[in-house]
């Protein structure tokens, strides 16, 4: 999902896991409407990563990852710890399990947030400008984790301002403006043969 600020990308993302209830239309997951499901159960199937990480500052990194495993998946402490440590290992932060979020850099915090979402084994991952709050030199590590996740076959909806990343990793790129998807298609088509003048203007400004 690309588009100017305020175009509704984040709102659209939040309707997918019903943090905001859609007024109209439907959200299909594996061909089934999610609007009749229990929203809390739905959100366990759909992981989400935020611009501001939203880690819980009063808990260690490990507890951030195990909280939902223990309370929602009802895993025992040892089991939850093992799952969480394996997940932290995958994002390169096994050694930070006992740190507090505030002791980590932004990039590390965002990778913890990704590990926290992945630990619940979601079917889909939503990324809401996951790198926008990071210092430029920290962006790469987070995008790398996301690219690996994509290569491993995870279905992802990514709101991003990183055009290079969108182009290389996405199967489909959608351009939104004023709450409407104006153009969507394979990255080559959207970036090189943009039809809509609004999209051309946007690309001319950001590329």
């Amino acid at each position, binding site marked *: 999902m690309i588009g100017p600020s305020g175009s509704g990308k984040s709102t659209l993302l939040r309707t997918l896991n019903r943090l905001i209830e859609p007024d109209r239309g439907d959200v299909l997951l594996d061909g089934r409407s999610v609007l009749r499901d229990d929203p809390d159960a739905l959100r366990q199937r759909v992981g989400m990563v935020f611009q501001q990480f939203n880690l819980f500052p009063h808990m260690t990194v490990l507890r951030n990852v195990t909280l939902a495993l223990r309370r929602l998946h009802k895993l025992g402490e040892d089991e939850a710890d093992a799952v969480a440590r394996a997940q932290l290992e995958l994002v390169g932060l096994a050694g930070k399990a006992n740190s507090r979020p505030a*002791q980590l850099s932004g990039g590390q915090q965002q990778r913890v947030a990704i590990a926290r979402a992945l630990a619940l084994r979601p079917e889909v991952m939503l990324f809401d400008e996951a790198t926008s709050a990071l210092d430029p030199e920290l962006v790469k*590590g987070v995008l790398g984790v996301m690219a690996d996740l994509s290569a491993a076959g995870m279905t992802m909806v990514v709101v991003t301002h990183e055009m290079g990343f969108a182009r290389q990793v996405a199967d489909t790129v959608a351009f939104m403006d004023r709450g409407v998807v104006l153009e969507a298609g394979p990255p080559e088509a959207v970036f090189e043969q943009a039809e809509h003048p609004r999209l051309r203007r946007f690309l001319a400004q950001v590329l």
Partner: protein
Amino acid sequence: MDPLSTLWETFFDADAMREALPEMLTVGLPNTLILAVSAALLGSVLGLLLAVAGISRTRWLRWPARVYTDVFRGLPAAATILLIGVGLAPLGMQVWGPDPYPLGILALSLIAAAYIGEIFRSGIQSVEAAQLEGARALGFSWSDAMRLVIIPQGIRRVLPAWVNQLIALIKDSSLVYFLGLVASQRELFRIGQDYAATTGNESALLLAGLFYLALTVPLTHVVNWIDRRLRHGRPATAPADEDEDDDTSALSGPRKENGDDHHRDDHLGQPAGARRPPRLRTEPGAARRRPHRRARRDGLRDRAVRVR
């Protein structure tokens, strides 16, 4: 006799103090502690309920909580204690007999709850809405998100104000003397007052005052200590583990980029050649404030309506 020595003997008569000391220690101090501690516990539990009711989306919870808070904060403590202690005495008589002591604790708790409720509410509402959204996105229900994520953080932020309220409670516990307690139920102030009344010398009252200071002054230092800790962050307890540390905080400066191929990365561990010397873990507070620099501070309830 000159006025100064009269003053000295009125307030600093060592014999009068020595006479009152045993009863202060064996009767007064335990009673003051029982009153203050039990009212603190009851008042905190009740205060938390009031705080949660006060930010509820249901007006039938919100309004009673507001009215309660206004009433019990607005009345003088002495009036509340008398109203409850005397007013409910017939009821108390049926439940536990003529003892006014439980009613004194109840009255102190109800007053403390109104103040503590407001303290907790302000703390809970100061937690960023993004925290609630983060917890909801993991699949937690609203009440679980509040219980596990929002309320613990909110209370942590207002611990200094809460301890201040406990100090006020210790002092207010002296007001239960209005209820006409029997000799063994008297707290510090009442014992001091009784000695002062029988001897005409205020030294015992001053001794009671010293006892109150001995209880409250350490607590004020606890407040300051908590406040410092919250302001500057706790000292880093986790051992520094630098091997995994590929992207670092502002402390070690910008890191070298190699090329612009930005989705291929070394996030699974720093290449051995690029490993930096371990950085010093200086100033834990420096990194602490950074993550929330852009966090929105809009009210929890506004967002709570949206995050269903």
